[in-house]
């Protein structure tokens, strides 16, 4: 099966006042049609920059310094800017945390969606409007025809986020990159959107990269999970494997610190130290200063250890079950 998205060795660097930082460091993963890949990690781990890099949307002072991004076999990194722009929005689309980054506040939903359709496809306004209506229905918006006539401010936050997702869906893209799209929403609204997104991947075959810092969300939504730490993917596998049998000490610590897995009131296992500064990472494994399993070996680059579909980048990972 050709992969909807195949990212190989993607590396993005920023030249900042405090020196060069590698925000995305040799990141590789792939997503098949109809599957949802969860990209998790703490603040600053490089999730968003990975998303932007996939779409070639990294801005100064950043630049993509290496790697390939294949969408249905086509390398986006090899495309001219003009061709890449055409592809965005049609073959790959992005949904942001703030739907107002996508929506124009002064246009009716229907007008702007129809306009988006017609940028990429030659069709009548009426047909475009109809396409927009279908897209709204797919994301579970009731009375979609009515909603098309509304302005963004007339919709609630959750509704607007659905519209943003629907807009991303207009051209039936092969891949959607969604960056924390439910983080700002209330839990009850979030769960509705998650349910729609799951259904959408299953029914339309769109491959989705879902960026989040919320482990609970990702464990109940994604098929596969990549865990990021300091710009690298430290562990990758099916959601079941990563959550139930994590092998990287960081993933173990992350999952262990979630309260719901412990008796109420019990002392929570905690990862010592604080999240790392990209500008001054230790040599070898970036998790070394906080890792309970660290040994002298860890001052050298950790190897990638693969068992089936589960891979981990660590000198001394937890035993595979």
């Amino acid at each position, binding site marked *: 099966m050709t992969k909807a998205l195949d990212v190989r060795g993607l590396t993005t660097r920023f030249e900042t006042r405090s020196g060069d930082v590698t925000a995305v460091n040799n990141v590789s993963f792939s997503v098949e049609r109809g599957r949802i890949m969860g990209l998790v990690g703490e603040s600053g781990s490089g999730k968003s920059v990975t998303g932007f890099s996939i779409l070639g949307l990294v801005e100064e002072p950043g630049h993509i310094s290496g790697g390939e991004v294949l969408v249905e076999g086509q390398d986006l990194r090899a495309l001219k800017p003009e061709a890449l722009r055409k592809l965005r929005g049609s073959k790959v689309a992005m949904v942001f945390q703030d739907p107002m980054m996508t929506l124009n506040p002064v246009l009716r939903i229907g007008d702007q969606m129809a*306009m988006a359709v017609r940028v990429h496809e030659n069709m009548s306004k009426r047909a475009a409007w109809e396409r927009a209506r279908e897209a709204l229905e797919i994301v579970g918006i009731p009375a979609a025809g009515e909603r098309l006539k509304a302005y963004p401010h007339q919709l609630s936050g959750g509704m607007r986020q659905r519209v943003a997702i629907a*807009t991303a869906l207009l051209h039936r893209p092969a891949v959607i990159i969604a960056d924390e799209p439910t983080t700002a929403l209330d839990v009850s609204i979030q769960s509705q959107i998650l349910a729609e997104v799951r259904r959408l991947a299953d029914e339309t075959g769109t491959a989705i990269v879902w960026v989040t810092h919320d482990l609970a969300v990702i464990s109940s939504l994604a098929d596969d999970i990549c865990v990021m730490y300091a710009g690298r993917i430290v562990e990758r596998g099916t959601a079941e494997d990563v959550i139930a049998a994590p092998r990287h000490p960081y993933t173990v610590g992350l999952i262990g610190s979630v309260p719901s897995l412990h008796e109420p009131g019990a002392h929570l296992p905690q990862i010592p130290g604080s999240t790392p500064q990209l500008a001054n990472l230790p040599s070898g494994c970036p998790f070394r200063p906080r890792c309970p399993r660290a040994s002298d070996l860890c001052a050298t680059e950790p190897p990638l250890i693969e068992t089936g579909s589960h891979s981990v980048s660590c000198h001394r990972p937890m035993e595979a079950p």
Partner: protein
Amino acid sequence: MNQPLLKIEGVHKRFTRKSGLVMQGIDRLTGRPSGSTVHALSDISLSVTEGEVLGLVGESGCGKSTLGRIISGIYTPSDGEVFLKGAPVARKRGNNVEKLTTKVQMIHQDPFASLNPRMKVGETIAEGPRIHGIVKANAVRARVRSLLQQVGLEAAYADRLPHQFSGGQRQRIAIARALAMEPELLVLDEAVASLDVSIQAQVLNLFMDLRRELGLTAIFISHDLSVVRHVCDRVAIMYLGRIVELASAEELYARPLHPYTKALFASIPKLGAGRGSFQPIEGRSLAAQPAEGLRLSSALSDGRTEMQNGAAAPETGGSRQRAGGMPPQRRRHRRDTENGGSMIEFSNRIAEINDILCAVNMLQWDARVMMPAGGAATRGQQIATLKAMARGLLLDGATEETAEAVLASNATERNRRAAEAVLSARKWHMSVPPELLKRQDENLDHRRACLGQGAGGRRFQPVPAAPFRNRDAGAANGRRHRL
């Protein structure tokens, strides 16, 4: 039976929103009645015994923070009363609220904005006790050192500035500052919400340790049900300003009785429960109904004008972060003589900031953010500024210094950008020329015709490839509107 430490009797809270000029314009435009009343709390009664931790849970906008602020004496209730050990916590003095006790201390979500960046941490902690004479002058230093140790920091940190600390450490400092007042009741409003999971565990452990050592009584506000389960003895579930269920944590989690509680529990994704393990609360999300006429929904103001029967949207986009722990604030309207327009001077009034945000959304190409000295800001700067404010970055007068400190430190790029926006925001004014407000009345189609034309500055482009409009437009002017 212990006498309750805190007793809340029949508390109601109504906010009357007097429309500013911008909102009046929008109200006219949309046919919404100007100056509406929000019933944020309805008939809340409960009591908390000494040593107990009570959780307050509910969706965004249900009134958790409002209740927290009433308990802390920051707001007074419209009806009803709040007593700490039998004495009222605050009283109304004309238009002001007078706090009657220092024994209730509140800890906010954002450890970053709540500490004065210019003040050494030790001074920040000592300030309250010194002013209120809680500790003798010669004992202050020792007290600060022991408080720092108590919250798991080194005593020597007393001489550092806040920007030298991480988010988790700052939250510890905020806790130390509250403890310095020897409070009988702590109100923690989303105190761990902005922390990364691994850091959140550290702060929760600290809270539980302190509780054991000091026998703390606390109100713990959170939207995270698993955190609440972990630290609370009793939990109140709130919905649209009411407490719909109140029970011991054990009881509530084992056997939720109220349909809303059940739906809420079912809708929360749980770690390790497997894929699709959550049950969305069906279409009932009030926000899911088609907009009635042109009544504006939550993001615009708070859409809660007619709250009876739950007929308005409880959901405000992004308001979880936004509403977290805001102190009472103010906004000023002023005549801007130079422009002949009306000017809104930004202060840190969050409720109104929703309005401003929406006004800017609606007036997009006409609203100008101006520096006092002249020089109109770019769209990107305006939006970044407003977002910074909407996200609650402007918490108090110290914010400006915080932002400067952030810039001086090696903060993350995101924080740095926010800081830059904040710095600008403090100095800017948004001015809307009066002829614009008139024009609004004419019609929306006219507004659409104006797209891409307005006066001066960078123009707002009609959507080309919609999903990337801002990204591409951002690329053109070299900035990204992300905070």
